[in-house]
């Protein structure tokens, strides 16, 4: 726990990144609807949810790298207080990789197969080759690449997946961006390598003061490194707050069921896992009220009719549920 919970922008403490009321539309359906969150320097904020919840689209919207089919409606994205949505594409290009960077799930696919590790990491520095080399070597060492003097001249195919992810992190962070967006950074990696990369991300957040937005589907990853978390369902934030508080006492039925659906190393083997009946509604069929109502054991007519707002349920812990006090 590095900093006090700060789900909304407190006046005395400016976040590195703030997303206000983000709305993303596909064919008129709000696949991301009213998403609000902020991240401070040195903090790890996780966006967690199952496929199609909008977590990855939110990340791409922050980078202004949305697919053509997705249009941004309402919403404002602020980087150190500057409204990114107002920037031209040319200005935005100077922001990406320098003030805000992104790493992806498939490091091998995200790296250029035809250029060396050194060239790719140096690209973000904007320095001439000769000067960049020293900086690159330092950065490779910082992300835990052994023998950087040899690795710097190698190509991605010569490296393992874990090593490629370290290279991607090095190239994302060498320009000292204020914010790093990490989109499922360890999903394609084995658990022993995942543990190494998560340790690295946490260390970099603390040492460099980078604000990290971590996109993941894995509650274990959230529990490991996130200071705060926003649980997303069908394009909306269901619940957000301090990681410890949410895991200890979830106040949204979706979060509670999601946590109870996980087999754990501490539960009784073959015990019944909680299931969430039905499936996530398609965007064209989003109901007028709470989007989880169709699958929720607590849902009533009020839930089906009216969208529950995110309400404070105690010390910065917010839940978008009309029955948050009934969640156990």
């Amino acid at each position, binding site marked *: 726990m590095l900093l006090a919970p700060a789900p909304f922008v407190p006046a005395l403490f400016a976040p590195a990144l703030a997303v206000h009321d983000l709305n993303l539309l596909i064919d008129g359906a709000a696949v991301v609807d009213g998403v609000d969150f902020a991240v401070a320097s040195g903090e790890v904020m996780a966006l967690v949810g*199952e*496929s199609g919840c909008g977590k990855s689209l939110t990340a791409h919207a922050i980078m202004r790298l949305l697919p053509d089919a997705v249009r941004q409606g309402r919403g404002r994205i602020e980087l150190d207080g500057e409204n990114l949505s107002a920037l031209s594409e040319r200005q935005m290009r100077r922001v990406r990789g320098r003030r805000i960077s992104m790493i992806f799930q498939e490091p091998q696919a995200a790296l250029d197969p035809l250029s060396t590790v050194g060239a790719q990491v140096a690209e973000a520095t904007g320095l001439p080759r000769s000067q960049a080399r020293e900086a690159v070597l330092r950065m490779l060492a910082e992300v835990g690449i*052994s023998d950087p003097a040899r690795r710097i001249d190698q190509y991605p195919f010569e490296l*393992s997946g*874990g*090593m490629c992810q370290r290279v991607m992190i090095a190239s994302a962070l060498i320009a000292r961006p204020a914010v790093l967006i990490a989109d499922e950074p360890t999903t394609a990696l*084995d*658990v*022993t*390598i*995942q*543990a*190494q990369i*998560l*340790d690295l991300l946490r260390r970099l957040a603390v040492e460099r003061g980078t604000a990290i937005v971590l996109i993941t*589907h*894995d*509650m*274990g*990853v*959230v*529990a*490991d490194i996130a200071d705060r978390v926003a649980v997303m369902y069908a394009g909306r934030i269901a619940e957000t707050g301090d*990681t*410890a508080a949410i*895991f*200890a006492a979830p106040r949204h039925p979706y979060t509670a*069921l*999601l*946590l109870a*659906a*996980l*087999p*754990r*190393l*501490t*539960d009784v*083997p*073959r*015990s*019944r*896992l*909680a*299931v*969430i009946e039905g*499936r996530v509604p398609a965007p064209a069929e989003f109901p007028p009220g709470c989007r989880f109502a169709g699958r929720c054991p607590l849902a009533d007519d009020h839930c089906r009719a009216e969208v529950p707002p995110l309400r404070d349920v105690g010390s910065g812990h917010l839940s978008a549920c009309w029955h948050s006090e009934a969640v156990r």
Partner: protein
Amino acid sequence: MSGPGHDALVVADLAVHYPARNGPPVRAVDGVSFALARNETLGLVGESGCGKSTVARAIVGLQPPTRGSVKVDGAEIVGASRAALRAARARMQMVFQDPVTSLNPRMTVGEAVGEPLLVRGIARGAALRERVAGLLTEAGLRPEDAGRYPHQFSGGQRQRIVIARALALRPALLVCDEPVSALDVSVRAQILNLLVDLQRAHGMACLFVSHDLAVVRHVCDRVAVMYLGRLAELAPRDALYAEPRHPYTRALLAAVPEPDPVVQRAKPRVPLVGEIPSPAHMPSGCRFHTRCPMTQAICRTVEPEWRQVGSSLVACHFAG
């Protein structure tokens, strides 16, 4: 006590080596032995490239092994004639990770689930439809679903269809290769509950291949941990998770991120250095020595024997 002929599966010294154009062969599986009793579920865990999926494919006859023996319900698979293999395949079925590629998009669900029964002349017509309806119900689908096509179902439901089809011939052995890895958490729970129910109802033997130690603990009676083509440890579930004997098992368990910040952040870190070596350039001695936190001189030269420590079998000089 069940003799070898009575076990559902006996794998002895199984090896799968792939020849390389230049250089030594890739030893994907390099001498693996274990047996599986009826009623028993054995988890086979390890990281990518350890050979666990190749073991599964060799068992069901999809991958001819370089050496070794695989007996399913007493019948040898390795080197079996096509007719013998066809007979043996009725006794074993496989469920893969990706239900989308496991189903023919042009066959209705009813045709897919009923095909094994039809092809083997077990049922047809109204009797077949009735059997299919029963299988679908057992897998948590509706009998009416028989007329629909795979694309009309979600990923979790498609995995149910694959499971219904695998159960059609009442196999003695079910081989599941990462059956829930492609599914979202809430759906994964449904399929795990289904698998647990089916184990209870049918008592078939199940080999459960997975990289996920929490999932394996949930459904398995015993667990085998594989590293670079060999078993590092094989133990009853509770022994393996409570008292892992092999340093690799310990590191794997320590690396599982638990969905509980209090537990997870209090956990001792057992960082494994480096990465898995290539199975084409196997380390000398113990194949785990390049990453092991307790490597000694002997580990670099002498391959550890497979030995019993407590209720576990373990391949480590220093286990005990």
